[in-house]
């Protein structure tokens, strides 16, 4: 297995897996929020929902996918780029769960996108040269 030339697709895929995991966990938590059995503040009642289990499976998948990225990409690049999840998760919460995004949060998303583009730019250039 060779060294990946462009790490961006792997990193975006990893972020999508994390986003899916968080959405599934939120749906699982919402479904079980009113269950009275057991000490509900521990979150253990969340296990009664299939969505919670699906979320946990996706979290484990995201760990393996992250380790694969680290195998090929410098930490100083992979780690900042992995924060694209902070763009995906609010947008997915807004789109799928109809949560409200405040003006401050929109501003944060905009800053994140600019920062991510700055970090990712050299890799896009490599891609252009290869083409």
């Amino acid at each position, binding site marked *: 297995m060779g060294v990946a030339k462009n790490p961006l697709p792997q990193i975006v895929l990893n972020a999508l897996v994390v986003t899916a995991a968080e959405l599934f966990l939120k749906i699982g938590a919402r479904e079980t929020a009113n269950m009275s059995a057991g000490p509900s503040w521990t979150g253990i009642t969340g296990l009664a929902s299939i969505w919670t289990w699906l979320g946990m499976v996706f979290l484990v998948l995201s760990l393996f996918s992250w380790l694969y990225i680290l195998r090929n990409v410098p930490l100083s*690049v992979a780690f900042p780029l992995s924060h694209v999840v902070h763009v995906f998760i609010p947008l997915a919460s807004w789109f799928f769960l109809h949560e409200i995004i405040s003006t401050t*949060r929109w501003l*944060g998303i905009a800053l994140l996108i600019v920062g991510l583009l700055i970090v990712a730019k050299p890799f896009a250039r490599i891609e252009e040269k290869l083409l």
Partner: protein
Amino acid sequence: MKLFAFPLLFIAMLSFVVGQFFFKHAMDKSHQHGFSAEFYRFFIPGILSMTVSFFLTLGLLQHFDLSFVYPFQGLSVIIVSAAAAVILKEKVTLQLLAGALLISLGVVLVSFS
């Protein structure tokens, strides 16, 4: 009460950053030697370090708002990038550091509700 939170937030962030370095080192070893004892020598401390961070963060979330606890995670971006240059001798350009700084600020703003 919040004063007591700062050392815990620092330890939670530090153990998260240390965990990432262990993972990176483990995966570099897997390149050279496959998934051998050398890999697990770094992978297991990585998992332990991340576990410490996870439970400290969970404990902090039991006492403080998410919008107070989570922005500190944003700082880890700039710390990891700078530390990767020093510890792993990775080539970190000014452009990358500027991008990492904006990402940090972005995470802080996104986390404030």
